[in-house]
């Protein structure tokens, strides 16, 4: 049973188109990893699904209901929750108040007690202002806040951003408990190995297009890395065959997130050949 379907999605910011005909689906209880370089459109895709950005074209359905035209607060009530990039807690609220903010009217397993059981470190700091917590604590509050809405679909944007590897390991060890609650997860992660290990399937985005997709266990790692960097040998999407020449997405890189040389999105290239690995 498909929970979330995205079909032929175009989206972007003002003049800049960041997503070109992106399609994906998430089955009940499934975790899909979204892999791609900075500026590939991963965060744009998540924010468009959550409703913070209006899609230019394409369909987004949740349990068969077309939600592409619904406002963001309505989508939250239907069961879409996001852990935004950079956490974006409400800094003047305490940790507990942050978790109590979601007003979706949805019941489910994630009561305050259940969330404190999942994140004991948040329970210990519940009455501290979110703006004064450490990065790891803030990330835990951000995940707890998203789960508190008891979502059908959880969008997780770079949970590991700016955190110590040991802290990130802790979050990924908790992921199975979150998955067991029946939520399906769309996971953005820069670390390819971590992303593949944590997911059932993986998609690779390059310049706003899905260039590779498949079961996480069966994906050829070298081909995935080629797709990630957009190397000339990489197979590319057929989505561009009839479309305009690819436009490099111009999303500004957030501060504190250095782009390693070679990870930069390369400029426009000729129309690539069809890729048999992309589901049509």
């Amino acid at each position, binding site marked *: 049973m498909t929970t979330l379907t995205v079909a032929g999605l175009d989206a972007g910011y003002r003049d800049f188109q960041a997503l070109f005909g992106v399609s994906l689906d998430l089955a009940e209880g499934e975790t899909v990893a979204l892999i791609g370089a900075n500026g590939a459109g991963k965060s744009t895709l998540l924010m468009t699904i959550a409703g913070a950005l209006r899609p230019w074209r394409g369909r987004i359905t949740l349990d068969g209901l077309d939600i592409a035209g619904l406002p*963001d*607060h309505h989508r*939250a009530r239907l069961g879409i929750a996001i852990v*935004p990039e950079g956490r974006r807690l*409400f800094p003047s*609220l305490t940790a507990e*108040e942050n978790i109590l*903010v979601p*007003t979706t009217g949805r019941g489910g397993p994630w009561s305050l007690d259940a969330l404190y059981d999942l994140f004991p470190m948040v329970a210990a700091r519940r009455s501290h202002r979110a703006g004064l917590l450490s990065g790891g604590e803030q990330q835990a509050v951000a995940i707890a806040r998203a789960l508190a*809405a008891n979502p059908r679909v959880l969008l997780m944007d770079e949970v590991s951003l700016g955190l110590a590897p040991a802290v990130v390991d802790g979050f990924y060890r908790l992921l199975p408990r979150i998955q067991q609650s029946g939520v399906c997860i769309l996971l953005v992660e820069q670390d390819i190995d971590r992303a593949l290990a944590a997911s059932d399937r993986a998609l690779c985005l390059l310049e706003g297009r899905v260039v590779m997709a498949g079961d996480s266990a069966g994906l050829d790692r070298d081909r995935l890395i080629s797709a990630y960097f957009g190397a000339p040998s990489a197979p590319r999407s057929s989505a561009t065959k009839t479309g305009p020449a690819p436009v490099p997405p111009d999303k500004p890189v957030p501060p504190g997130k250095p782009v390693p040389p070679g990870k930069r999105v390369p400029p426009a290239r000729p129309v690539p050949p069809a890729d048999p690995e992309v589901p049509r």
Partner: protein
Amino acid sequence: MTWLNDTLQGIFVGGGYALTAVGLSLMFGVMRLVNLAHGDLAVCATYLVTSMMAALGVPFLAALLLMLPLAFAAGAVLQLALFDRALRTGPLAPLLVTFGLSIMIQNLLQQTYSANVRGVPAGSIDVSAAHLGGLVLPGLSVLKLALALVVIGGLSAALRFTGWGRRVRATSDDVAIARLQGIRVRPLFATVTGIAIAAAALAGTLGAVTTGVYPTLGTLTLIFAFEAVVIGGLGSLWGTLLGGILIGVTQVLVSQVSVPYATLASQLLFLLVLVVRPEGLFGTGEAAGQATGAEA
């Protein structure tokens, strides 16, 4: 003893200023919206009360209580129909829209009620007073200060402890993320503006019992309220109470020496605070920074 009594009267006067200013403070704190029509809306409510008393033959307090839900509704409708749109188009639009609203209200009131000063007959509470040693406790002034304490205390508690308050504070921190948590921002802002306008209407009407009401009174009301907010610190409700009281005490004390200098003295106090502590007495500097950031 005279000085003590003067200070007490100043605190009472300041309570009235604070009750007017609390809505201004709330709207700025939550939405970064400076409502230049705040005083004029309070004056509208005062005229409404006098009209209701004349048309329905009800006493002052009954008309006052009838007016409050109407003031709340007017605030909510203004927010939904006008201020929301203005806020979406940038920081300059709300200033222009509320300034235009202020001019329209003043002229409409002049057309309807003439420019003459009109008394607000409040009956016995206007003249009632208790005496405690050498101190005078005028009934109306005590009522205004008590209402200021109740409104500011109640609002602070509601913001701190209720789900509504949590949503208001979250939205004030980050509107975009608040929406993604399922918060419907437009109705939430409508309740905030409704409360702000109702409090101003209450304060303006009680104040007009002493001073009378005229169409351009709102400008003066706005200036004192604005100064109370800035002296107390932008976005701090208790700071606004303190700011109002400081203005009131300054005015009453100086007026014992020279009445014409009373208003000047409160303006000088305002300027002094701006020089010495521009973020206001209770301001964190954060709200002021956000305000200038929003205007940049």
